[in-house]
C-alpha cells in the first residue's frame, strides 16, 4: 500500500487569507466572527465568519476577465489552491493530477442573486448551470487546467472531509498519484435563512461544548490539500500524512444527530481501525463542535463511547471561523496539520461551563504539546459522519 502524503495546502477563511494568517489567528485566539457586510441579507443580527473580500476584489486578485462566470465558492477555491500550488513547490499541476472537491451548496449564491433576472437578462444566464455543485468544481479545474479526474462530493457538512477520504483511497489504490482534495463553501442567503429556519443559529458568538451554547455561526471558507503517493512525489515537502479515515451513517434523522452518537462513534472507530491505531494513541481531537445543542451533545457522547474515561485533549475551532459547511472538514484538516507541525493545540473559544450531561471540558488556552496523531471529525445532515486521522 502507498503512503498518502500531504505535500501542499491552501486556505482562505474569516481568520486569514493564507495558512500563515490562519495560523497566527489560531495562536493568538483571534476569531473572524463579524456581522455580514458582503452577503446581502436582512439578518444583520446574525454573526458570521465572513471573508471580507467582495467577488470583484477576488476576481481582480485572480486576474479573471470581467465577464467570467465564477461563483463565490469557485473564487475562494481558486484563491486557496493558488496558495497550495505555490507551497507545493510546483510550477503547475502535472496532467495526471486529480481533483475532488466538497461543497454543500456550490453556486446557489448565483441562483438567489439572479433568480428573477434570468427571464429578462440574457447576460445573467451564464449562471444558470452555476447552481449545481459540479459547476463550481469545473470552474476551479478550468483555472488550473486540470482535465482528468474531476468530481464533487456533496454530503452537507462532511463534504470536504469525504473528499479527503476519497482522495486518500484513490492514491492507496494506485488509481491516482496526485490529487487535490478539500472543499469550498460561501455564505449565501439560502443557507443563512435555512439554518435560521431550523433555529440553530446563535445571535452571539458560538460557544462549542458550553453548557449554555445557543447555536452555530455560519462561515465561509475554502481549504485544499495536495495528496501524493509517497513514493512518487512531485511536491517538495511532506507536511503530514493521512493515515486513517472512516465514514458512517447515523441512520437516525435527516438533520438531527442521534443521542448515542452512533454515526460519529462508527466513523471514529473505522478511522482508528484503518489507521491501525488504538484510541489511546490519539494526541488531540479537532472536533466538529458546531455549538448547537444537538451536535455537541451527540459528539461528546460518541467521544465517551470511543475513548471512555481517557478522552484526548480536544477543541472545536468553529469559534474562529464559524461553521463553513462543506469546507469545514478541509480547513480543520489544515488546522490539524498545523497542530502537528507546531506542537500546539488551538483553543476552543467562548467556552465557560461544562455540559451537564457529559462533564467534558475542551482545551481553552493555547497549549504546547508534542502531537503526532490528530483525529478530525465532520458530521453532517443526512446523518453523514466522517473522521480523518492525520500524522
Amino acid at each position, binding site marked *: 500500500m502507498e503512503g498518502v502524503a500531504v505535500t501542499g495546502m491552501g486556505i482562505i477563511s474569516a481568520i486569514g487569507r493564507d495558512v500563515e494568517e490562519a495560523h497566527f489567528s489560531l495562536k493568538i485566539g483571534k476569531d473572524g466572527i463579524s456581522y455580514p457586510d458582503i452577503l446581502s441579507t436582512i439578518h444583520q443580527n446574525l454573526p458570521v465568519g465572513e471573508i471580507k473580500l467582495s467577488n470583484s476584489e477576488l476576481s481582480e486578485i485572480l486576474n479573471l476577465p470581467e465577464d467570467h462566470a465564477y461563483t463565490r465558492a469557485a473564487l475562494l477555491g481558486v484563491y486557496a489552491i493558488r496558495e497550495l500550488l505555490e507551497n507545493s513547490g510546483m510550477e503547475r499541476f502535472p496532467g495526471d493530477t486529480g481533483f475532488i472537491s466538497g461543497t454543500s451548496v456550490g453556486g446557489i449564491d448565483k441562483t438567489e442573486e439572479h433568480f428573477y433576472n434570468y427571464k429578462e437578462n440574457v447576460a445573467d444566464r451564464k449562471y444558470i448551470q452555476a*447552481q449545481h455543485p459540479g459547476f463550481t468544481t469545473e470552474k476551479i479545474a478550468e483555472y488550473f487546467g486540470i482535465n482528468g479526474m474531476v468530481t464533487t462530493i456533496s454530503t452537507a457538512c462532511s463534504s470536504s472531509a469525504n473528499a479527503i477520504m476519497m482522495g486518500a483511497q484513490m492514491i492507496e489504490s494506485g488509481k491516482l498519484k496526485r490529487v487535490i482534495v478539500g472543499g469550498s463553501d460561501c455564505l449565501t442567503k439560502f443557507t443563512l435563512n*435555512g439554518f435560521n429556519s431550523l433555529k440553530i443559529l446563535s445571535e452571539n458568538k458560538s460557544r462549542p461544548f458550553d453548557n449554555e451554547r445557543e447555536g452555530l455561526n455560519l462561515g465561509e471558507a475554502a481549504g485544499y490539500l495536495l495528496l501524493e503517493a509517497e513514493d512518487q512525489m512531485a511536491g517538495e515537502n511532506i507536511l503530514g500524512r493521512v493515515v486513517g479515515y472512516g465514514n458512517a451513517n447515523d441512520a437516525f*434523522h435527516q438533520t438531527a444527530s442521534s443521542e448515542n452518537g452512533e454515526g460519529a462513534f462508527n466513523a471514529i472507530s473505522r478511522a482508528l481501525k484503518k489507521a491501525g491505531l488504538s484510541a489511546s494513541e490519539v494526541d488531540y481531537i479537532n472536533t466538529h463542535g458546531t455549538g448547537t445543542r444537538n451536535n455537541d451533545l451527540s459528539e461528546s457522547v460518541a467521544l465517551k463511547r470511543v475513548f471512555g474515561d481517557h478522552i484526548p485533549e480536544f477543541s472545536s475551532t468553529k469559534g474562529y471561523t464559524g461553521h463553513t459547511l462543506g469546507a469545514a472538514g478541509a480547513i480543520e484538516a489544515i488546522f490539524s496539520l498545523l497542530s502537528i507541525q507546531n506542537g500546539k493545540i488551538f483553543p476552543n473559544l467562548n467556552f465557560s461551563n461544562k455540559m451537564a450531561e457529559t462533564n467534558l471540558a475542551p482545551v481553552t488556552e493555547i497549549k504546547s504539546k508534542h502531537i503526532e496523531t490528530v483525529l478530525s471529525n465532520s458530521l453532517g445532515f443526512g446523518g453523514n459522519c466522517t473522521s480523518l486521522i492525520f500524522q
Partner: protein
Amino acid sequence: MSKVYINGVSSVSPQSEEIFENQSSKSYYQHILPALDQDYKSMIKPMMLRRMSKAVKMGLFCSKKALLEAEIEKPDAILVGTGQGCMQDTEKFMNNMLESKEGLLSPTSFIQSTHNTVGGQIALDLKCKGHNMTFTQNSVSFESALIDAMLQFQNDDINNILVGGVDETSYEFTGFQKLDGQIKTEPVNNLELLDSKTSGTIISESAAFFTLGTEKTTKSYAELKDIEIFNSIALENLEEEIEDFLNKNNTSVLDIDAVLLGKNGDVRFDHYYKELQEGIFSDKCQVGFKHLVGENNAVTSYAFWLASKILKEKKIPEIFKLNALHCKEPGKILIYNQYLGKNHGLILLHSL
C-alpha cells in the same frame, strides 16, 4: 481485489422497464419528460411518501427493488450520483425565501434540499450505518459513485454496495435550462431526437439503482470492470483516451461488442459520438438511449441498467440500436457519455 458483479437492478424513467422485452416505447412531444409514475406505495409507507420529493421517491423505490432482486437486506455502503440533487425542495425554499424577502420560513424544504437527502433517506429507511456518499459532478455523478464503489470493495468488510443515479426536474430550475440553450426551442418528438439538426436536447427525470456484490449469484447480470472520468477531452484525443482506458483493462477496441452512446441530439456536441461511430467503433453495434429517456445528469445510470440487461439477456432490442449491425452475443460493452462537451465518462462491463 475480487470481481464486482451486478446482482440487482431497477430503473424508473420516462419509459417502462418492460421496454426491454416488449420494445413498446412511449412517445413524447415535450421538452421535459417526467419519469413514469410507479406503484410507490408497494415499497414505501404512504405517510413517508407524502413528504418525499420525486428524487427521494424514485431513489428509494429503485433501491429497494434492486436490493430485493439481489436478496440483500442491508448493503454495506450506499452511493448516490445526482448532478442536480433535490431541486424540487431547493426551489420551494428558494421561492419562499425570495418571495418573503427572508421572512419567517418553514425549515422542511431546506432540510430536504441538501444533495445527500436521497442517500440519507435510503440509509434511514434501511437502517444502514455504512459508508454513505453522494456525488454531484454534472454528467459524471453516477460514474463517480461507481468509482467509489470500486474503492470501497477493496475493503474486505464490504461485500454488497447499493449504488445508483437519480435526478429530478423542477418547474423553475429546469425551466431555466430553456433559457441557456440546454433545451431545444422547437417542438421535438423524442423518437426523432437523434436526427435533430439543432442545438439543445430534451431533459428528463430518472433513477436507476444497482446492487453490486463481490459474489456471483444465479441472478447476476454482468461484471463491472472499470470506470474512468475526464473533466475535458479534446475531440482529437477522444479515441486515444478510450484506447488507453481499454488497454488498462487488458482489452482493446477489437474486443468490444457494443457501445452505448449518450447521443442527445444536440448538434453542438454530438460530434463526440459521431467521431467514434465513424471511427474506432464503426463496425460495432451502436446503442443509444436518450431518444427514449431524455437527458439528465444521472442518465448514465439508465445506460448502466440497459447494459446490464443486454449482457444478461444476450440481446439488444432494436429500439435502442443506432446502426444496423447485428451483435450476436454481446460480451463486452463500453458506455461513453458527455454533456455539453464536458464531464466525459467511460464504463466497461463484461458478460458472465
